[in-house]
């Protein structure tokens, strides 16, 4: 129960930080980090998948209301929350299947690859739906890459500060 409350508080802090601060950075004109993905990437491992997918949808929808976008954050968050077990299996292999993976004691290289791919998928869907025009594929890819790198750096710093410190 205690963990449940602390997860909700983390989610709320990330939502407010995203809406009030990270959405307004506009680095080099229009690059913003989408730091709220942190919550989806490092949500505790043992959980009910159905419940998690539903939570991710609501979580994305709140971000949408904050950013005045039309369910694009919800869709992108939904997709990564659905794909998360598959990605974990891909990057952590047998260790994940035997349920011995813990985020505070994982291999650095595997962690970075996992984080990068989850962010990249999220941003690709986000910008794909936002621009919604296949003829502007270069713009979609440019925005995706720019934001992915920015988000990746910020989330990794958060990871070191919050999860790795507990060791």
């Amino acid at each position, binding site marked *: 129960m205690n963990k449940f409350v602390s997860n909700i508080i983390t989610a709320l802090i990330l939502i*407010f930080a995203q*809406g*009030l601060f990270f*959405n*307004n950075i*506009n680095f080099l*004109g*229009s*690059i*913003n980090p989408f730091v709220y993905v942190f919550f989806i990437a490092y949500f505790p491992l043992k959980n009910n*998948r*159905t419940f998690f*997918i*539903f939570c991710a*949808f609501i979580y994305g*929808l709140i971000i*949408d*209301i*904050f*950013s*005045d*976008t*039309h*369910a*694009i954050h*919800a*869709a992108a968050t*939904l*997709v990564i929350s*659905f794909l998360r077990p598959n990605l974990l299996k891909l990057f952590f292999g047998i260790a994940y299947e035997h349920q011995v993976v813990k985020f505070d004691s994982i291999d650095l290289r595997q962690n970075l690859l996992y984080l990068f791919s989850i962010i990249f998928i999220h941003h690709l869907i986000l910008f794909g*739906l*936002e*621009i*919604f025009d296949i003829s*502007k594929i270069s*713009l979609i890819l440019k925005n995706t890459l720019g934001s992915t790198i920015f988000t990746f750096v910020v989330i990794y710093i958060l990871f070191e500060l919050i999860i790795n410190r507990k060791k």
Partner: protein
Amino acid sequence: MQRIIYFLIRNKDFILFLSLLLICLSININYNEYNKSKFLNSSNSLFSYLYDTKFTISKYFNLEYQNKILTEENRKLRLHIYNMDDKKVDDLEKINFDVTSGSVIKNSYSFTNNFITIDVGKKDSIEIDHGVISSKGVVGIIDKTTSNYSRFISVLNTNFLLNAKFKNSNYFGILSWDGININKVQLKDIPKQANVSIGDTIVTGGNSLIFPKGIPIGYVDSYKLDNSQNYLELEIQLATDMANIEKIYVLKNNNLSEINSLDE
């Protein structure tokens, strides 16, 4: 029957995922058709309140720049007053456009469809389709209002269209944005015999009932013939810096109902 239920239970995650994804896509596609989904936006009260609080804190950091703009505008207005002809004073009795001033509490320019929230609403008699300008030029059109706040479609929105013309001739075209550079918008359908030169001022045309004729939009940055070889396509440098706007004015056309009654 049992098998179907078993199948549903086994794949419940995937079915939930698919149905939620369909909801997201339908919201998004409806919007792209043209702005049908108006229920997801930040001008509802809780979020506006938060942005308002944030704005009261952050506005102090921008005061110097905004003061400079206001001083510049005052200077221009004084110039007008001192050079006004006496006979024009009578015109003031018949006001065509009401002006309400307000502040931006949430700016946005990093997407391809940007909306901006301001701190005036129905209480200040703001309604849908009123024009919004800054002291330098056009910035958008109101698309949703609540009692204390409203939201407008920014010029930097790929769904924004506006009738625009040259300041020194009457060739007009359609202004839109391609979503790439936040300082440049595109003006299309200008006949190729128009005499264009770099730096010409583009203003609002009188064909739109939303804005009065002659409000500046921007300056010609470059131009080229379009695919049909009959029309020019112009790149316009916006007069307003969309990344840094705070004070805006909302324009209400007082003759709108009278003009609309002609079309019935």
